[in-house]
């Protein structure tokens, strides 16, 4: 089969280019895209990509496979290959460091902006802050995010304003803390988000939902934040 892969080494190449490689895959096996990358790296050791846990937990190997973002380690070839061809590109919208490795600084900057930690001004209890099972259940579908950036880099609003729009990943985490019964900084968090860019640049196209490798729904979380902002303002 044919694998077309995005190559760019800023120290050597004038501009990025697509490299076509013919690859014989072992018969009778449905390899993951990450396995194919390992085969390619055996042929050409200069190929650069991130990987770590190889089981969809660390979020290192987010990339664009045949036009759709996802994690290479949990994407089977049978799911992604079209017409016996696989096109691999780095996550769109972020600066490329080399080949499939992108600079995630802007993504992390937006994550940092929403203060992704519990804030509670009340004195800490002796053992722990308790939470009812019902309140804990509100965090399901929010805390599982692994920050792979597949969602934010598939969002046109994030492509056009990565410095102003928090993006689906950051907003999912923003809601994770807004929905937490132990957090007491709700007003401060909402005040930080009530501008025309941070939340409201989301136009609800749901690319984030369709690519999330963990099956999470950032658009729903953004809708909840919007409702909280509207309730606060009316």
């Amino acid at each position, binding site marked *: 089969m044919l694998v077309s892969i995005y190559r760019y080494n800023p120290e050597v190449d004038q501009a990025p280019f697509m490299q076509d490689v013919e690859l014989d895959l072992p018969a009778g096996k449905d390899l993951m895209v990450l396995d194919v990358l390992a085969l390619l790296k055996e042929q050409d050791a200069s190929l650069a990509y991130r990987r770590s846990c190889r089981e969809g937990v660390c979020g290192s190997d987010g990339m664009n496979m045949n036009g759709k973002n996802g994690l290479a380690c949990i994407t089977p070839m049978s799911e992604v290959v079209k017409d016996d061809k696989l096109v691999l590109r780095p996550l769109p919208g972020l600066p490329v460091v080399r080949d499939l490795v992108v600079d995630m600084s802007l993504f992390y900057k937006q994550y940092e902006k929403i203060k992704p930690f519990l804030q509670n001004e009340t004195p800490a209890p002796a053992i722990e802050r308790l939470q009812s099972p019902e309140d804990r259940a509100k965090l399901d579908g929010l805390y599982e995010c692994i920050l792979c950036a597949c969602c934010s880099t598939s969002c*046109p*609003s994030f492509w*056009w*304003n990565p410095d*102003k729009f928090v993006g689906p990943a950051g907003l999912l985490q923003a809601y994770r803390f807004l929905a937490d019964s132990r957090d007491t900084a709700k007003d401060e968090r909402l*005040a*930080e*988000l*009530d*501008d*025309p*860019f*941070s*939340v*409201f*640049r989301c136009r609800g196209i749901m690319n984030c939902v369709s690519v999330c490798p963990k099956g999470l729904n950032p658009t729903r979380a953004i809708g909840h934040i*919007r409702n909280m*902002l*509207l309730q*606060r*303002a*009316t």
Partner: protein
Amino acid sequence: MVTSVTNFGRSGAYDWMVQRVTAVVLAFYTAFIVGLILFTPDLTYQTWSAIFGQTWVRIFSLMALVSLGAHAWVGLWTISTDYLKNGLQRFLVQAGCGLIMFVYLVWGVQTLWGQ
């Protein structure tokens, strides 16, 4: 918090609400105009003029005009901040849009209440 001085109401929630409320007004006005054209058998200048001579139609039309201006401002402001990255270029386009909307509003008032 991202600061912006050119959006409609300083707050994202306010702009969002304005866009939705004005959309509802515009939907009702569109239904009214389409209904008027479809269900008025002889739509001559005299009947049209008599309909628009009524105060409630004038108020409704002015409301639709103001809604159109506000709705278009929020929408075009969003598009211009997405695609125009040069500050001066963006400001000029936004100023042009604002001018056109203001002209339409004044022209509309003149048409509705003029002789």
